[in-house]
């Protein structure tokens, strides 16, 4: 297999991995701030 | 003379379900011989209070004692067969005939199915015993539910809208069942909108509004 070809797969893997992780972490952060806002509003 | 222990006692009971607080800080004692009428608007918590008394409803706060057992502990399983609870929705199995429904109930109490047949006759359903429950009118299903009370002779009656969907004969039957239970030292709780009818039957009444007893 070509050298560059291998790097493409590695790039794909890391892009996938970090996109998923960052998206998930952002979703936690968003849900936390939304919940805090709701708690603040309703109290 | 030692005073009889209460049939049920609620102390500071609150109930929540989903996003709503249904009961708030209820104190209530039901003594032997009581026939308690509970009135209130739709959604005021009438049905929930019955389920609490039937040991079926988990409570958020407070203590519940029914027939001498703590309703939050495993003791409740031993007193449950002595409770007669009729909800506002019939609990019959729709595919089974009235006789089969009552027979199932009788046998779960260790009784013979003939007891079920005679109970059905007593509520005036002898002719419909072999009809499927889902082919019976709502009133007939209600009558069949009362036959269940006759089978097990509970000491603590909990009736949700006992008179709804019943004709004059059946109303008399309900009144007779309540009187008999109360006279024998049991107690009954009747939840209803029908104040006039329940007042004539009850020894005392309470009003429930916004989850609070008045």
């Amino acid at each position: 297999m070509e050298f560059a070809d291998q790097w493409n797969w590695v790039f794909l893997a890391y892009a996938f991995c970090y996109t998923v992780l960052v998206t998930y972490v952002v979703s936690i952060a968003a849900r936390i701030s939304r919940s805090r806002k709701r708690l603040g509003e309703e109290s | 003379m030692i005073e009889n222990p209460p049939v049920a006692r609620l102390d500071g009971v609150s109930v929540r379900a989903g996003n709503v607080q249904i009961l708030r800080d209820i104190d209530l004692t039901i003594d032997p011989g009581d026939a308690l009428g509970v009135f209130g608007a739709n959604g005021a918590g009438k049905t929930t209070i019955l389920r609490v008394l039937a040991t079926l409803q988990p409570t958020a706060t407070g203590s519940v004692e029914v027939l001498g057992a703590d309703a939050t502990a495993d003791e409740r399983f031993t007193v449950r067969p002595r409770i007669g609870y009729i909800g506002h929705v019939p609990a019959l199995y729709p595919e089974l005939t009235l006789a089969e429904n009552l027979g199932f109930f009788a046998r779960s109490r260790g009784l013979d199915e003939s007891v079920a047949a005679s109970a059905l006759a007593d509520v005036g359903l002898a002719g419909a015993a072999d009809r499927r429950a889902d082919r019976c009118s709502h009133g007939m299903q209600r009558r069949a539910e009362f036959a269940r009370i006759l089978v097990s002779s509970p000491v603590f009656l909990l009736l949700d809208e006992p008179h709804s969907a019943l004709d004059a004969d059946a109303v008399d039957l309900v009144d007779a069942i309540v009187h008999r239970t109360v006279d024998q030292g049991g107690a009954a709780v009747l939840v209803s909108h029908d104040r006039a009818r329940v007042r004539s039957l009850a020894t005392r009444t309470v009003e429930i509004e916004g989850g609070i007893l008045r």
Partner: protein
Amino acid sequence: MTPREQTIERPTSVWPWITMGVAGTVTFIASMAVGPDAVQGQLSRIMYVHVPAAWLAYLAFFVTMAASAMYLWRKDLAWDRRAASSAEIGVVFTGLAIGLGMIWAKPTWGVWWTWDARLTLTAIMFFVYLGYLALRRTTTDLNARAKRSAILGVLAVVQVPLVHFSVVWWRTLHQPPTLLKPEPIDMDTSMLVTLGIAVVSFTVMYVAMMFKRIELARLEDEITEMQQTADVPIAGEAVTAPALERGA
């Protein structure tokens, strides 16, 4: 002071976020800095995220089970929140492990999927997790939800060894063509060290995520709790008289 006010005033810690970022960066730098494998070439780098993700999938599942069992024992909702948080993070890492495995398999073996025992088991676990999370969405009552999902959490894990052995034995009966057999990676020390760093920093990342996810679970439970205890009147009062005059 009500518990609600406590939450608002309780400062939300930024340390878990920083930890996650550092752990992710460390993994990335370490796996790019190490030399390529003699056989697999650059592709071996995928291993440094695939293996830690798979490890965390198993760890998260195990934590869910342990926390579920603790809930059934102690009846404390804090354990339920830990179980649920770990399950959700577990779904993410399981999905990650499967996805990365597929990306690795395609250039290495020429297929996206092989019926390898561990791969099959991981895929099954993914669906078990999903079922667990779906179950949690069906009930709003906190205690009822906790009890049901705890029972499922324990049952699912008790079943995992059974599923595992059945799949392993099934595999021994159906040996695949040798063409598709993964070439063993002969790991030298530097690769081993890198893998170790990656596994440790992913685990640290998981712990940091757990902190935040549990914080979120507690907030969500408090919202539910508040809606239940607040002076919200009983069902009927949500309905008001229709405004017939408007616009007339």
